[in-house]
């Protein structure tokens, strides 16, 4: 699980990056969600960066794979920002959806809830909403269709260029 550190106004990105190195944290600065530990940043163009940070957490709660780093979830939700940039209705859907999620989560909002089970309980209440459906429906492709994660699941992907599996273990099972 990722801790997200939200700075008060006025802290520079450099300062944030410096602080971030203290622990595995996602930082929000200007228009970006930054992961200093792994040296990546996700720029938000239309959605609020806080919204993007919540989407990353939400994405992990929907498809929780502990062996996947945050950046895969960040890449997976990027499309929400892109779509929001193109269609104002989508922007509203996502921003309102996140706001609603925060409201249901008590004073600190969704990301402040420490236990996955507590967050998931809230998600179960909203799983039929268009907001949740839009996020999950996109995520099931945008997460699992990332070639970089396939080896982590033990899927080898394209095989034609390697001559198929005829010489590479199509029948190599030994434990039966």
């Amino acid at each position, binding site marked *: 699980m990722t801790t997200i550190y939200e700075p008060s106004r006025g802290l520079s990105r450099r300062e944030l990056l410096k602080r971030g190195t203290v622990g595995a944290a996602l930082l929000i600065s200007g228009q970006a969600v930054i992961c200093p530990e792994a040296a990546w940043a996700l720029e938000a163009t239309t959605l609020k960066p806080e919204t993007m940070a919540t989407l990353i957490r939400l994405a992990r709660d929907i*498809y929780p794979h502990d062996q996947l780093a945050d950046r895969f979830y960040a890449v997976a939700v990027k499309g929400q920002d892109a779509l929001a940039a193109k269609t104002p209705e989508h922007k509203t859907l996502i921003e309102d959806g996140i706001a609603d999620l925060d409201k249901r989560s008590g004073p600190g909002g969704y990301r402040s809830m420490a236990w996955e089970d507590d967050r998931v309980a809230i998600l179960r209440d909203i799983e039929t909403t268009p907001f949740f459906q839009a996020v999950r429906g996109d995520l099931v492709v945008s997460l699992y269709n990332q070639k970089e994660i396939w080896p982590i*699941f*033990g899927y080898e992907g394209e095989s034609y260029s390697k001559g*198929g599996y005829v010489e590479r273990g199509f029948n190599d099972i030994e434990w039966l």
Partner: protein
Amino acid sequence: MAAPYDLNDNSVVVIIGSGAGGGTLGNELAQKGVDVVILEAGNRIEYEEFINDEWESFSQLAWLDNRTTGGGWRVSKDFPNLPAWIVKAVGGTTTHWAGASLRFQEHELKALTNYGKVDGANLLDWPITLAELEPYYAKAEDKMGVTRTNGIEGLPGNNNFKILKAGADKLGYKECHTGNMAINSADRDDRTSCQQTGFCFQGCKWGAKWSTLYTEIPKGEATGKLEVRPNSHVVKIEHDDSGKVTAVVYADKDGKLQSQKARIVCVAGNSIESPRLLLNSASSKYPDGLANSSGQVGKNYMRHTTGSVYAVFEKPVHFYRGTTMAGIIRDEAKHDPSRGFVGGYELETLALGIPFMAAFLDPGGWGRSFASAMDSYANMAGLWIVGEDMPQEQNAVKLHGELKDKYGMPIPDVWFTDHPNDVAMRNHAYTQGEALYAAVGATRSFPTPPYPSTHNLGTNRMSEKASDGVVNKWGQTHDIQNLFISDGSQFTTGAAENPTLTIVTLAIRQADHIAKEMAAGTI
């Protein structure tokens, strides 16, 4: 070499669709010297261009024109605009298909007689017998190079098959092998043998698997008697005052409407587009659509009783390696009502890659239960259930009341609800599948719901009497002599077997009939 025919040439046989039915019929007729134009809505994509990537391949080949769906099936909720997973390209769904090629069983062709009346089902006997089909089955198997026929060896079993076989042995199943597959186990027909790449559903980049795209179609073209016109989307079939069909109106690659004259029209657009086209061709003479005096056009939509069982083991399986459908158990394909349902089902191995597994394992599913299943992907084995479903009148392809496609034609609205017999069969198969994997040490298994329909059948069904169905035993419409149906929509009932071998068999047989009648001058 491919013969280009004039739009005003009214001596040609026009076939709509180039898949299993249309592609085969086109070649068969061309071999007999008949002039044929195949109009195909999709692109011509040769097999070298296929893509070993599930979603990319899907966008390359799948039929993505808007469709809607309703009824009690879960697909209508999970995939509201994708009732069926079929192809829009030269070669049709034989580009995507897995290659399982099984003959129907004798009793299945007489479903009403053998099962008796089933409440809520619209069962009927086929107007043909197995004996009549057998010589054509033999031709089809030879043409397609089906393993375990014509002295062709079976394919080697992959890991997924080995698990299936071990479980089958434990359960006492007797008939389990690597299937009757239209996939080369050795070089044959100028095509290479299977390299076990595991992307059969994405189009075989080796050409090892039979598809009309690189067998029937080029062979037909080589005769100089067949023209395949890709990017030609038929919107309407026209007729004269006598009621005979005379021409086919289609949108060409630029979306411009063209009219191709025809002596005979054969519809082979698969079981959603074929009835849609007949319904969309309604005229003052045929206000309910062409060939619809029985009112059965679009009705009795069948899709096989399907479902999958995936199971997780302690150790790796890598089931995505090798042929997608790598083996079969046939013991449950019999008709044995003591199981609580009529008809039977086959169990066939199936594997999906990570992207499709995520989409289809439990559509809409999320959370730890779902994610931990995905975490075990490398240790998964899987099988697919394919069984006979009941034809029901209200399961139907209808014209949408409001939505139109870009040519202004109403889009298809596909309605389906399981019959109680379908549900009982699926539950039985789930139990057997889970027991099979448990017997080999599965730690967890998943009864996975049906995918969007890959087998689409029955919407222009064959019947003895004109009042019961749309076509006669030759696939010729009861109402219009020079209008034929040449795809799986002719099926009177679905049987337990994957349909393509039978579609090809019927197309070969239909070609004989058409050529004979043309020679006799009757059509």
